[in-house]
C-alpha cells in the first residue's frame, strides 16, 4: 500500500472507532429527556431573541489568512530545495516575500490587522 492508501484506511478505521464510541455510549446511557433539559443553555434565563452580528474583522482576517497561507505554500517548495537552487533561488524567493511583506505593511497601515 502506498502511504496515502494507508491514510485512507486509517481514516475509515478511526471514524468507525470514534463513531462507535459515541453510538455505544448512546446505547448504554440512560435517557430521560424533558423540556427543560433540551432547552439551550442560556444561563438559566429565558432565551433572549436577538440578531447575530459578526465583526467585519473576521472577513478581513480570513482574507489575510488566505493571502499568507498561499505565500507559505509557494515558499515550501523553495525551502526544500533551498541549497540546490542557490543564490538565484534565494533572490527570487526574497523578492516574492518582500512583495508580500509590502502588502502586509499596507494592511498594517490601513489598520486591517489591529483589533481595536
Amino acid at each position, binding site marked *: *500500500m502506498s*502511504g*496515502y492508501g*494507508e*491514510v485512507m*484506511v*486509517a*481514516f475509515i*478505521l*478511526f*471514524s468507525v*472507532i*470514534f463513531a462507535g*464510541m*459515541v453510538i*455505544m*455510549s*448512546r446505547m*448504554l*446511557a*440512560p*435517557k*430521560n429527556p424533558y423540556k427543560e*433539559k*433540551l*432547552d*439551550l*443553555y*442560556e*444561563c438559566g434565563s429565558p432565551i433572549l431573541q436577538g440578531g447575530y452580528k*459578526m465583526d467585519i474583522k*473576521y472577513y478581513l*482576517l*480570513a482574507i*489575510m*489568512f488566505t493571502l*499568507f*497561507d498561499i505565500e*507559505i505554500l509557494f*515558499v*515550501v517548495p523553495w*525551502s*526544500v*530545495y*533551498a*541549497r*540546490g537552487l*542557490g*543564490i538565484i533561488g*534565494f533572490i527570487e*524567493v*526574497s523578492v516574492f*516575500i518582500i512583495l*508580500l511583506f509590502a502588502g*502586509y505593511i499596507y494592511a*498594517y497601515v490601513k489598520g486591517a*490587522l*489591529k*483589533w*481595536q
Partner: protein
Amino acid sequence: MSDAVIGALIFLVKFFLLFAIISVFVLYATWYERKVIGHMQQRIGPKRVGWHGLLQPVADMIKAFFKEDSIPRDADKLFFWSAPVIGTVFAMMAALAIPFGPPLVLFGRHITLDVVHLPSGILYMLAMLSLVSFGVIFAGLSTKSKYPIIGAQREVAQVISYELILATALLNPVIMAGSLDLTKIVDAQSHLWFIFYQPVAFVCFLISMFAVSARVPFDLPEAENELVAGFMTEFTGMKFSLFYFAQYVVIFTVSMLAVIFFFGGWLGPSFLPPVAWLFIKWAFFIFLYTWSWGTFPRYRYDQLMNISWLILLPIVIINILWTGFAIQFGLPYLH
C-alpha cells in the same frame, strides 16, 4: 504469506499500537495534570480511586460512557453528532505520521516507526491539524446556542492565525534539513539540534503550539469563566469527552513536532533506546503545558490576535529570509 498481506498486518499492528499509546496518554494525561497542578497548588489531586488515584481516568472514562447524552431540541442533529467525531478523527490522523524512532530492520523487512510514512509528512500533519478545528466549528454552529457560537468564532480566528505562524516557524528547520520528511529532519540534526540554530523560530513555534492546542494562556475557545465551556457548552457524556480527547491528541502531536523539529527527535546518547529519548524530551513539553496552566492568566481575544498578526508574523517571515540567506552564504552558524 504474500508481501502485501504482511505489509497490511504490520500496518494494522502499528495502527493499533499508536491508538493504544495515545489512548493511554490521553487517559493518564488528565491524571498527571490534575496531580501536578494539585501539587503546584498545595493540594494532593486525585487520591481515592486506586493507588494515588491511578484508576481515576478509567473511572472517568466509564462515567463518560454511561452519562446521559442530551441533544438540544434546536440543534442540527447531523452536525451535532459528527462534530466530536470529526475533531477526534483528524487529531488522530495527524498523529499517524509521527515517527517514534529511526527505521527498524526486522526479519529482513524495513519497518518505519510511524504508522504511515509520507515523504511530505509535515505538510500532511499540518493539514490534519487544521482540520481538527472543523470539529469545533461544527460543534459551535450546530447547537445554535450563543456561547458555543462565540467559542467557535474564537476558535476559527485563533486557529487560522496561529497555524500560519506554526507552519512558517516549521519552515526554518525544513530549509535547513532540505526535506519535508520527518525522519530526514531528525537525521539532519545529528550534529546539533535545530533549537541552537533557530531559537527565534522555536519561540514562535512554542507560542503558536499553545494557541493551536487552545491551552492556557490561549484557551479562549473554551474559556470557562467567560463562555461557560465555550463550544462544548451543550455537549454531554461521551461527546464532551471526545472533545477533550481531541485536545489531548493535538497536545501530544504538537509536542512531538516540537521535539522532532527542534530537539533532535530520538537522538541522544546510546545508553537509552531512541524511543526513550523521544519520550523524555516530549515529556518536558507536556510538563510545560501543565506548568503554564498553573501559572498564567488568560489573554483576551483581541490581544491574542494582535500577538499573532503584529508580532509573530513579521518575525517568522523575516526569520525565513534570514535562514535562506545564511544557508546560501554558509554563514558560520551553519555547517
